[in-house]
């Protein structure tokens, strides 16, 4: 059994890393343990004991918190001021069958973002500053607490999504936004391959959606959500804002649908519930990495392939971000994954970047250690 190291200060974290570097041992960084850590030989280093909001002034629209702060704790504090994290960080405990709480550090390090991502940006786009411990055990600060900043190199762009390959995040500062007055979701009976075109047309005509996903019939059935039509694939499109404006966007969107594309509207509470389920992959509960594959940026042809796979009844499909990512579970899911290595020069650049933070490769880091692909197993 490998030990879990839980430093309570960033100085203590620095000492742990320096000692690992001195003894030639490796560490795998984890957050709250809400996602299954990949198997490895390293001890685990977690930011879970570094908790608490360090600065929050609602009118600044920026919040700073230690990396081990549970997302739910921060969300609660933001909600008291009618604010939220715009990128909708997911909670995948049901999917992975885990119990640890998602933390801010984990969300930023993995750049985990929910269905609002294509409309407002991902976790990375909302990161304005951070503190971290690099592979030398040095405590580094990057960015700041302002909404705009171009002083020096933006190390946050590298750290967000680096999955623990560059260092342990100890504190993050994130942009927040006001919670809109209301939301409404349209459930439309269309296939997933039709979603990208529908959303592109809507965007071009100024219709402002805030989420767009498509669930196959099997996913709809497993989701057990009230209000969703059963026995057919369903596209979900969300609108948020002040009530009269939302009503107008919904009306205009309906006008773009053909006569056979029936749309059912879900109001505030039902809408909120359905997107929580989509965000957290509830319909894939317990399937975890066993037989599920996430396809990032599938091409149109791949969306048609997913549509066919969903039609055979053996596979479960959820297409998100207007078609920019998809999950498929079932016996043939893994055959859809295409493994490609990065071109040699790009891989050399990635390795150099890792060396610049962690020259001794103290941090063992899953996908960065393997020739992983754009089709990423989860």
């Amino acid at each position, binding site marked *: 059994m490998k030990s879990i190291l839980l430093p309570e200060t960033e100085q203590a974290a620095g000492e742990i890393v320096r000692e690992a570097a001195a003894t030639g041992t490796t560490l795998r960084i984890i957050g709250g343990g809400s996602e299954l850590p990949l198997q490895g030989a390293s001890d685990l280093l977690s930011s879970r004991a570094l908790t608490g909001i360090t600065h929050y*002034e*609602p*009118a*600044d629209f*920026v919040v700073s918190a230690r990396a081990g702060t549970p997302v739910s704790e921060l969300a609660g504090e933001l909600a008291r001021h*009618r604010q939220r994290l715009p990128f909708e960080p997911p909670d995948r405990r049901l999917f992975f069958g885990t119990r640890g709480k998602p933390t801010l550090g984990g969300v930023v390090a993995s750049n985990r973002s929910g269905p609002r991502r294509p409309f407002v*940006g991902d976790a990375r*786009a909302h990161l304005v500053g951070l503190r971290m411990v690099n592979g030398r055990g*040095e*405590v*580094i*600060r*990057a960015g*700041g*607490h*302002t*909404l*705009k*900043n*171009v*002083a*020096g*190199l*933006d*190390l946050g*762009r*590298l750290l967000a*999504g680096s*999955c623990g390959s560059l260092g342990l995040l100890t504190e993050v500062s994130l942009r927040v936004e*006001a*919670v809109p007055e209301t939301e409404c979701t349209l459930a439309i009976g269309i296939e997933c391959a039709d979603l990208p*075109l529908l959303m592109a*047309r809507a*965007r*071009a*005509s*100024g*219709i*402002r959606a805030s989420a767009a996903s498509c669930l196959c019939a099997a996913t709809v059935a497993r989701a057990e959500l009230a209000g969703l039509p059963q026995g057919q694939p369903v596209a979900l499109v969300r609108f948020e804002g*002040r009530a*009269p*404006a939302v009503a*107008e*966007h919904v009306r*205009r969107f309906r006008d773009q649908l053909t006569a056979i594309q029936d749309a059912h509207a879900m109001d505030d509470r039902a809408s909120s519930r359905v997107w929580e389920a989509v965000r957290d992959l509830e319909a894939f509960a317990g399937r975890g990495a066993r037989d599920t594959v996430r396809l990032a*940026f599938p091409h149109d042809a791949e969306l048609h392939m997913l549509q066919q796979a969903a039609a055979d009844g053996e596979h479960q499909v959820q297409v998100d971000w207007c078609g920019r990512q998809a999950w498929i579970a079932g016996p043939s899911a893994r055959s859809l994954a295409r493994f490609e*290595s*990065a*071109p040699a*020069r*790009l891989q050399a*650049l*990635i390795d*150099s970047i890792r060396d*610049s*933070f962690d020259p001794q490769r103290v941090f063992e880091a899953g*996908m*960065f250690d393997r020739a*992983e692909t*754009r089709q990423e197993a989860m």
Partner: protein
Amino acid sequence: MARGRDSIGRFSGQPLASGPIVIRTLFRPRSSARPPLLRELKSVLPEGGLIAPSRRVTTYERDGLPCAGGEPLAIALPATTEQVSQIVAIARAAGVRVMPRGAGTSRCGAAIPLEHSLVISTARMKSVVAFDAQGGRIRVQPGVTNRAISEHVRAAGWFYAPDPSSRRTCTIGGNIATNSSGACALRHGVTADHLLGATAVLHDGAIVELGEHARRQSGYDLSGFLCGSEGQLALVAEATLRLEPVAEHSETVIAGFAARADALAAASAVLRAGVLPYRLEFMDWRAVAFTEALVASGYPRDAQGVLLVELQGLHADVAEDARLLSELLHGAGATSLACSPTDAELDPWAGREAIYRAVSGVGGFEALDCCVPRTQLDAALAQVEAIAAQHGMDHATVAHAGDGTLHTFVLYKTADHASADRARACADRIRSACVALDGTVSAEYGIGLGRRELLTLQFSALDLLQQRRAREAFAPGDWLNPGKVFPQ
């Protein structure tokens, strides 16, 4: 604005004002090595694609910082990605450092070359490679101007959102280098939020595809990391950008306030109520006076602070937000309120957009682009007043009230070096004061040559060392745009 020849300090002489700028020659190639190198460069470039040092090339030695650089070895004007790759490789083999250059509109000396470096200008890389009118994205070469992108796509119902004040002339390559943005960053974000993919040329000439240009996403956001790197990591040879739909309707509200603090509190009230304007701008009474003297825009001249709020969206969005906005501004103590539709006789944005012209009509100026946490904006502007008074300087301020960026113009008499020195000292004290308020020395212009020593106010030596290490991972030996950003 002092941009006249008499105000320009020459390289190896003194810059305009005594200050921290030191331009050093990092490399001087053997004179015997020059002709073969120039011949080799010429062989891969199109006709007229190399400007040799025998001709005056002053244009390429300057940018918006009143300070001239060293005489470059040559100016290369490639037209394709492959040509960029070839000339960078040739320069690397010859031991000549490379300085990418867009339109040279930088205000901080980011586009000033060191002596004997090879300037690679994007002046001939002005093509639109592909435009996806349905998906709202465009792939361009780096020499396309910011404004030209919007003009190219407008008929199809799109525009390119990041809006630096130099957008008529600045290039997209330069925008990426400085992560450019302007007033509409509040609603639409900065350049990094719009850069979907890039084709980059590394220090040795290798071409790498990043972001959506790559078949495989690397995990690190390398195209995003190029944003704001001031050309020190790689040269961008092509970029794919996200476009925004042109709004169906737009409306601007001009609100006057008896006190600066009231105006800024009103801006906070608007945002906290969930109204997200396209632009939310603050102008102090001096900025109002300067701009109204140049172009009448209907700003209340008796107000201490003015807010300009532009709403965009469907008619329903704008109508609903305008109703709430009016209530909020009245509630926050607005002494005057005027609503101006897009087709109004007086353009409500004409004055705000003419601020640089307006202050340059008064004399020279030091322009600041500090950013502070939004709630510190009033404290920052109080510091501006106090510091300017101590230095005996006139000044004017406009601010992006939505994100806390303040553009203070510290004014001085053109060709009066003592006055210019005082303006620079005053500006640097304001920058320090903003950092002390948990802010940043630069939110838009970048660091370049002119502000590199100020970076130590914001970051520890260790923080900067880690940034340098990351830069070295891309371009070992300060090879690209040398001498910039980091304190020497």
